[in-house]
């Protein structure tokens, strides 16, 4: 899918997200793929906070804020309700799509997400991952990476930021034997767009996990969002993959990684990391890729 094939309409517009917000780019791009028959569900979080302040309502399509833990469960209800309503009124194509952040997905919303996948509900769940609770002021989430400084994992002499790695949401979701799951980054928007399009044509539950840098939380210039979102995939600290028909597949397998140290050092949240910390991160990256390349196609 190329730029000209996208819906010309803008469905997320005039919102109050910070300049350079990666999350808003993910939402905007996905809705341009799904079009006017997308019904968006967004839990409490950045994208709902910046888009739904009566009377400033920034979604051009049907959209609703869900409870924080309830993205997937509300999607289930929306899909079931729309299906019934459509049957009566003769509507055909619609998409129930959710946009939840990393906290809304990997922490408070994981139970509802697991339930929806288990039921096989015909919904598309997009996790825009900015790696911390940004809306409330940069607190650690289950998807905050190892070493990152947040306001609840301060970097001091004793503890160098967050001491745990990111939850492996992609494989947690895939382990449900979901019809389709994918990872993406807003740095490679075409890849993301293609995955959203692919997901929109599959029946059952679909999950896309898209890295969406937050300049405020990551400590990067607002102009660097896309560049950093590319670098995370280029340096191997993120990977682009799909899970389909019970199999994992890399959609991008870099021959060589760019410098993970350079990726980390350019961000305020990693400024405090020692050479040893960085070596730990690189070691963990290498082990992950070794496993991926061995086990996945």
């Amino acid at each position, binding site marked *: 899918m190329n730029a000209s094939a996208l819906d010309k309409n803008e469905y997320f517009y005039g919102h109050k997200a910070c300049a350079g917000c990666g999350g808003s780019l993910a939402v905007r791009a996905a809705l341009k793929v799904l079009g006017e028959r997308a019904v968006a569900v967004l839990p409490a979080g950045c994208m709902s906070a910046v888009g739904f302040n009566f009377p400033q309502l920034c979604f051009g399509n049907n959209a609703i804020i869900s409870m924080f833990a*309830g993205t997937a469960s509300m999607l289930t209800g929306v899909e079931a*309700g729309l299906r019934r309503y459509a049957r009566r009124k003769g509507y055909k194509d*619609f998409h129930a799509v959710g946009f939840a952040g990393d906290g809304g997905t990997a922490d408070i919303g994981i139970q509802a997400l697991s339930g929806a996948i288990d039921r096989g509900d015909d919904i598309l769940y997009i996790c825009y991952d900015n790696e911390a609770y940004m809306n409330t002021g940069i607190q650690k989430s289950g998807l905050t990476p190892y070493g990152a400084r947040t306001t609840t994992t301060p970097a001091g002499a004793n503890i160098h930021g967050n001491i745990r790695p990111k939850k492996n949401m992609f494989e947690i979701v895939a382990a449900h034997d979901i019809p389709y799951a994918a990872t993406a980054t807003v740095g490679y928007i075409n890849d993301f767009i293609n995955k959203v399009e692919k997901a929109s044509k599959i029946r059952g539950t679909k999950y896309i996990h898209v890295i969406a840098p937050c300049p405020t939380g990551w400590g990067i210039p607002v102009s660097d969002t896309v560049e950093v979102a590319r670098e995370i995939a280029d340096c191997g600290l993120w990977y682009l993959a799909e899970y389909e028909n019970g199999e994992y597949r890399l959609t991008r397998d870099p021959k060589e990684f760019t410098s993970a140290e350079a990726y980390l050092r350019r961000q305020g949240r990693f400024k405090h990391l020692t050479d040893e910390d960085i070596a730990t991160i690189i070691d963990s990256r290498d082990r992950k890729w070794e496993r991926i390349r061995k086990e996945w196609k």
Partner: protein
Amino acid sequence: MKKFLSGDEAFAEGVRLACPEVISAYPITPQTVVVEKLSEMVENGSLDAEFIHVESEHSALSCAIGASAAGVRTFTATSSQGLLYMAEGLVYASGGRFPIVMMNANRATALPWNIYGDQRDSLALLDTGWIQSYAENAQEALDLALMAYYIAEHRDVSTPYMANLDGFILTHTYENVDIPAPEQAKEYLPPYETNNRFDFEHPVNMGFSAGPETNIIFKYKEHRAFDRARGVIAEAEDRFAQVFGRRYTGLLDTYLTEDAEYVIITLGTIAGLCRNIADELREQGIKAGVIRIRYLRPFPNDEIAAAVRNAKAVGVLEKDISFGNAGTVYANVTSALQWGGITAPAYNFIGGLGGRDISADDIRDVFTKVQTGTDRLNWIGVSR
């Protein structure tokens, strides 16, 4: 058609007649029979609905809100801890004005764990913006299921409705119940039509934020809907009597209160025993009466004050306690008395917690204490 049904089964029959399109529920004793029955009905094709096996009560209500936002009639059911787990969704559904109907099987709340009936669950959530009714028998339970949709979905109300049934005492006790014909139910209950839903021709943004400037206006309107619900409940019952021939009595049900000097005010199944004792006392020349509150929200302030205008003293008997104060029903009743200029003393009787039996002797004792005067707050069956 007459059938021998438990309260849960009767309610499920009422729900079937109301034809909800999306049902989302999670099992919890003593609500389970309702969802099992509804599952059977969906399976055998006698109810054309999506039955969604959610993974928690929080999701049950979240799912119902989503379906309601899509413009369809919904149902869920729960009890006790499940209701409390839904608490966030309760204010969400009411604030968004989604006319979801929920059955709650009144049950004690942990700790200590206890599966038997009291009303601490729903009363703890009285302020969440849901209409709350309390049924006395299985027939009323079935009928309330139908009326619940009529009232909740009425354009002037558009507010969720929680129909409460006493756990086990009502949910699991069998009675002969008249099941109306589906054609009659169709005649009674119009299809759900609303503008509070997604619309592909005119898209909407729903469930939004409203800042300090307008927030209070939304809340005012939510409250106003409850005032309007008073009239709609009367209308729903009038229409019900026309179509089905059974007449209900609004926000409360009075028994011998016209000239009563001593009145017990209560709710749910215990009212029947209270009426029996009132009969007994009448034979002894004591002017006893009973008020059964049918709706705790909207609350029958004026109706209670009118019904006790000749009373010398009032007792409020309830299966709950608001720790550090008194019973929640008592707090509401005394407020109604004050508004109505009633100066008769009112005494509170807390009993039946965790399914503890309230006996005929207990009720006799309550009436005696109301006559002689007693402490403001009295616990039934607690001897120290």
